C-alpha cells in the first residue's frame, strides 16, 4: 500500500466533484447540466473500474481524514458565495443540509441496526410542528423550541420503538408505516395543529435577541438572508455529524451492528436487544426532530404535506443511495437526491418516478450504496495491522 499517494487523489476527487456540482447548479442550460451529470457518472464509473486508483483514493480518505475534513468544511463555507445572485440555489443547499441531519439519524436505524424505518418523515414533522406551535402559538424563542422539538421527536421515537421490540423485518416495517400514517392523520385532523392549512408565519431564529437572518447590502453586494441560514444549518449539521461519528466508533454502534447481523448470536452474548433497539430509535428520532425544527424556521410554514409517508420513503432512498452505515455516503446520497432533481424542475412531475427508478437500480446493481460501509478501525498498540 502506497500511503503517500493517497492524499492527492482524494483531494482531487473532492475538489473536482465540488467544482462540477457548483457548475451544475450555476449554469442555466439543461444540456450543460446533463453533460455534467453524464461526466460525473462516467468519471465515477471509471474510477470504480480502475481498482488501483479506487484503492488509492479510499486509502487517502482513510489516512488523511483531518486535512480532507478541513477541505470539505472550507468548500462548504465557500459554497453560498458562488450563488449570491441566485438565492434560490442557496435555499436548495440549505434544504439539503437539513435533510442530511434527518437521514444521518435514519442511518442509525436503517444502516447500522437494519431496522427499516419508514417513519422518519413523521418524526421530522413532529419536530417541525413542535417547534412551530411553540413559537407561533406560545410565542417562545427558537432556543427553547428547538431543544423541545428534538426531545419530543425523540420521545415519540422511543414510544414507537416499544412495539418494534418484539417484531422484526416486515412486521417492524409495518409498525413504522402504521405509525407514519397515524401521526399524519392525527395532525391533519386536529384543530390545534391547523389541520390541512398547517401553521404559517413561523419566525426565524434570533441570536441574543438580534434577528440576523436578514438580507444585507455591503456596498454593491447583496447578501441574501438564506446565506446566513445556510451557515446556521451548517453548524448544526457539523454538530450532528460529529456526534454521529462518535457514536459510530463506540460500543453502542457495535451493538447496533451486532443486532443487524445476527439477533440470536447477540442474545447469547448478553447484548440487551431492547436497550440497543430503543437507543437506535431514540437517537435517530432526535436527529429527525432537529431537522424538522430547522426546516420549519427556515421555510416559515409547515403542513402535513412535509411529513407524508413519501417523505419517510425519500429519506430511506437517501440512505440506500449513499450507502448504509456510512455517514459520508449518507451525506452524499442526501445532497444528490435533493439537489439534482431541483435542477430539472421542468420535470418536476417526474421526480417521484425518478426516485423510484434510482432506488431500484441501486438495489439491483449496487446494493451497498455509492460509498459502502467500511470496517471499523481502532488504534492498536500491538501494531498487528496487516489488514487491507
Amino acid at each position, binding site marked *: 500500500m502506497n500511503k503517500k499517494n493517497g492524499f492527492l487523489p482524494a483531494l482531487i476527487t473532492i475538489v473536482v466533484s465540488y467544482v462540477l456540482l457548483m457548475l451544475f447548479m450555476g449554469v442555466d442550460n439543461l444540456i450543460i447540466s446533463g453533460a455534467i451529470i453524464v461526466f460525473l457518472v462516467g468519471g465515477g464509473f471509471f474510477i470504480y473500474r480502475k481498482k488501483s486508483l479506487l484503492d488509492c483514493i479510499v486509502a487517502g480518505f482513510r489516512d488523511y481524514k483531518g486535512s480532507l475534513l478541513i477541505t470539505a468544511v472550507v468548500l462548504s463555507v465557500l459554497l453560498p458565495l458562488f450563488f449570491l445572485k441566485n438565492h434560490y440555489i442557496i435555499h436548495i443547499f440549505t434544504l439539503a443540509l437539513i435533510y442530511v441531519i434527518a437521514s444521518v439519524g435514519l442511518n442509525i436505524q436503517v444502516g447500522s441496526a437494519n431496522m427499516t424505518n419508514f417513519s422518519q418523515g413523521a418524526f421530522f414533522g413532529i419536530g417541525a410542528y413542535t417547534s412551530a406551535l411553540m413559537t407561533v402559538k406560545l410565542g417562545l424563542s427558537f432556543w427553547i423550541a428547538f431543544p423541545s422539538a428534538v426531545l419530543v421527536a425523540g420521545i415519540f421515537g422511543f414510544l414507537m420503538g416499544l412495539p418494534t421490540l418484539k417484531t422484526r423485518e416486515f412486521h417492524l416495517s409495518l409498525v413504522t408505516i402504521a405509525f407514519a400514517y397515524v401521526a399524519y392523520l392525527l395532525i391533519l385532523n386536529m384543530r390545534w395543529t391547523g389541520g390541512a392549512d398547517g401553521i404559517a408565519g413561523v419566525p426565524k431564529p434570533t441570536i441574543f435577541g438580534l434577528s440576523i437572518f436578514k438580507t444585507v447590502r455591503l456596498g454593491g453586494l447583496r447578501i441574501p438572508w438564506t446565506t446566513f441560514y445556510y451557515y446556521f444549518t451548517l453548524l448544526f449539521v457539523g454538530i450532528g455529524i460529529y456526534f454521529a461519528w*462518535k457514536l459510530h466508533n463506540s460500543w*453502542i454502534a457495535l451493538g447496533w451492528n451486532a443486532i443487524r447481523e445476527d439477533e*440470536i448470536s447477540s*442474545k447469547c452474548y448478553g*447484548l440487551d436487544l431492547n436497550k440497543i433497539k430503543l437507543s437506535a430509535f431514540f*437517537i435517530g428520532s432526535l436527529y429527525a426532530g432537529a431537522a424538522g425544527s430547522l426546516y420549519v424556521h427556515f421555510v416559515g410554514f409547515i403542513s402535513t404535506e412535509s411529513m407524508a409517508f413519501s417523505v419517510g420513503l425519500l429519506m430511506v432512498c437517501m440512505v440506500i443511495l449513499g450507502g448504509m452505515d456510512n455517514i459520508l455516503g449518507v451525506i452524499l446520497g442526501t445532497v444528490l437526491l435533493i439537489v439534482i432533481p431541483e435542477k430539472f424542475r421542468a420535470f418536476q412531475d417526474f421526480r417521484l418516478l425518478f426516485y423510484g427508478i434510482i432506488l431500484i437500480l441501486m438495489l439491483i446493481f449496487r446494493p451497498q450504496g455509492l460509498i459502502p460501509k467500511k470496517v*471499523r478501525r*481502532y488504534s492498536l498498540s500491538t501494531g498487528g495491522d496487516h489488514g487491507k
Partner: protein
Amino acid sequence: MENNRLLSAENIIMSFGGLKALNDVSISLKDNEILGLIGPNGSGKTTFFNVVTGIYAPTEGNIFFLDSDIAGSSPQDVARRGVLRTFQTSRLWLELSILDNLLLGMWMREKPNSLTAILRYRKVKEDFRVKAAEALEYMAVFSEELAGSPYRQVKELALVDRRRVEICRALLARPRLLLLDEPAAGMDPSETRELMRDIRKMQEKAKSLGVIIIEHDMDVISDIAERVVVFNFGRKIAEGTFGEIRKNKEVREAYLGKEYADA
C-alpha cells in the same frame, strides 16, 4: 447442592409438539471439568445446548448453574451469568471484522452507554485499545494469522477459521461454562488436535472454566474430555470415562455401529 458443582441439569424434557427431543436427561458438570457430549445426528445434543442457553425453555426439569435455577431464563440472562456457547453452523456477525466480533464478545464486561460515547470519547478510544490488545492476544493462541489480520471481514474467512474466531469470541466473554458445538467440524485431524490442545490451554489459563464439547467423532473427544456422556434419541444412554463408554454395549450398538456403517 454439592460443592464445586458448576452445572446440574436435572430430568430435562424438551418436547416439540409430540416429539420429545430430550427425554429425561440429567447432566452435571464440576468446575474445571471438560465433558464430552456425543451421539448420532439428531440425538438431542444441540437441543441440550439450546435449552441450557435459554433459547428454548425446557418443557420440564431444572437447570442449576452455580446453584441458581436458570431453566427458562432468557438467553441474555444466561449469558450474563457466564454461560457462553458456539454454534454448530457458526454464528458470527458476518459483515463485521474479526476484531469487531472479538470486541463484541467482551460486551458484557463493558456497560455500553450511548452517552459515554459522546461525552467521554477519549476514554472509549482508550478502552477499545486495551480490549483490542487482549482480544488479539487470545486470537493469536488459536491462529497467528487471524490475529495478524484483525480487520478482515468474518464473511471472507473459511469455515474452519470462523470456528476459531467464534471460540475465541466466547472465551473473551470470560465464561464460567463454555458450550462448544462441534468445534472441530470440517477440520483435518492435525488441525483438530491443535484446536483441542488450544482449548485445553485456554481452559487451564482461565482457572475456573467448565467446558462441554459436542463432538461427532469419538477419537477427538478421547483426547480432551475426562468424562463423556452419550445421547441417543433424546436420551442419555451412557456416561463415564472414555474407556468405560467404549465398552458399553448400548453405545456400541447405537453409535459405533453407525460409525462403522458410515465408514
